[in-house]
């Protein structure tokens, strides 16, 4: 158990520091800390022009959605980066428990995603006058962690695909775009065609964004329990599928000798 925990925590942290090259301040600050605010400003101004919703509506939607930037790219690179640094074979040759190995990499990514998303709220408050009661800050933070968890699960799936293809950044970008269009970030779900709203129900972010908007308006966590439960379930499902896919691709990679050749 001690070894499992060491691989989970220490291994995950070292992997994050080593592979997540955005950790450099010169990259981290403009991309992850300032990026969400610029996205929020863009959509808030677009929303004003379209006469669609208030600035706060866009602040909450885009701030929560920006967790996907860190989660999808973070998990994608945490696995694909091993290939770039030519350590993938060495890592997969170890007898380490795979759950500890891969889930440990997800934990720092999850924390980072929540931090990234929270900067969007700060930016929205400073530049667009977004306000929520102080009593709602902690529940909102909890929802951010939940959204980050669900997105990290999806990121695990993206990372798994990275064992088979070289285009992890492309897949992560496209996945983010899907979340941006489908999840009610900038377009109310009832304004989307029926099939798009149906797809949104099965994506991470949709329920977390809906819950965050209600909580930011003053609702208690208890009133958004269903959304939280669904988001948690979706995150766990994506994480499980991503992990199983990773194991399968690893075994296939060993069998066919293609781990470093994708």
């Amino acid at each position: 158990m001690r070894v499992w925990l060491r691989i989970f925590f220490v291994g995950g942290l070292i992997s994050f520091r080593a592979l997540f090259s955005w950790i450099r301040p010169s990259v981290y600050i403009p991309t992850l800390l300032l990026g969400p605010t610029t996205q929020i400003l863009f959509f808030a101004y677009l929303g004003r022009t379209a006469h669609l919703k208030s600035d706060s509506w866009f602040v909450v939607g885009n701030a929560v959605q920006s967790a996907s930037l860190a989660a999808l790219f973070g998990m994608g690179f945490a696995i694909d980066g091993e290939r770039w640094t030519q350590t993938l074979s060495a890592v997969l040759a170890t007898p380490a428990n795979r759950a500890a190995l891969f889930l440990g990499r997800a934990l720092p990514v999850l924390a980072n995603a929540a931090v990234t998303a929270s900067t969007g709220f700060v930016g929205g408050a400073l530049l667009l006058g977004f306000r929520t009661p102080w009593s709602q800050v902690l529940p909102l933070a909890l929802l951010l962690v939940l959204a980050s968890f669900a997105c990290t699960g999806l990121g695990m799936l993206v990372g798994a695909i990275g064992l088979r293809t070289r285009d992890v950044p492309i897949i992560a970008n496209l996945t983010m775009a899907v979340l941006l269009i489908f999840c009610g970030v900038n377009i109310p779900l009832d304004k989307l065609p029926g099939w798009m709203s149906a797809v949104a129900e099965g994506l991470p972010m949709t329920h977390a964004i809906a819950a965050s908007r209600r909580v930011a308006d003053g609702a208690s966590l208890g009133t958004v329990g269903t959304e939280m439960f669904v988001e948690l379930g979706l995150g766990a499902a994506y994480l499980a599928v991503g992990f199983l896919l990773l194991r399968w691709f690893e075994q296939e990679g060993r069998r066919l000798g293609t781990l470093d050749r994708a």
Partner: protein
Amino acid sequence: MSSQLLRIARLFRAGFVINGKMLATSTFFMLIAVVQPVIFATIAFYMFRSGGRAGTLLYASLGAGMMGVWSTTLFASGGMIQWQRWQGTLELGVASPVSLPLIYLPFCVANSFTGAYALGATLLWGRLLFGVPLQLAHPWAFVLALPTVVISLSLLGLLLASTFVLYRNANAMSNLLEYPVWIASGLVFSTSILPGWSHPFSWVLPPYWGILALRHAAFGGNAWTPIGMALLLGGVSVVLATFTLRWFEHLARARATLALT
């Protein structure tokens, strides 16, 4: 003199063609130039339609297309020198007898021309999926505005290439500048809704004048002033880029850091 011009034209053609081919085979740049603008156009279409402003869909289409031109210019030209380094071709370019701006200008033009796919993609997407009509008030002005916009952004791209090289993580700088320039240029909304202090920033951005030229040509209005301003700012960019590229070359040679990232 004519043989000199011919050599420059040949150099320009070779640089344009080779970089155009490289970009056309890059999944990443096709994503930026074609897929991403279509995604933003879709979001803008739904937002305008949901807000009861369906009449502005062509406005959104043009804006989303320009967003793609800017993104391609930003990522392709901003990271150009760094990519030349990674590919090991920077030394060859610097060592050649031709001046650096002349070598990299056709690369930048190819970058922005690739970005122009974005306009075609968003207009086609809008027509096919949302029934956006392409009715132009001044077709000839539009035909002239389009290459002008692309060229002025190419020249700005040369300036980006020559300044981002001093920043180790050009891609991070590109990430940071994508949304702010979309906002400041008012690509999918009018800059009149932005705070007054931001307007001077808009006026020095070629994409601001570029989208004005396209809008005025499409919906009516004076397209010639924005076209002239886009060209003027492009000219200023190329003059500045000539100095900064020379400075970069001098520093890199003096410190022997040309190939170092």
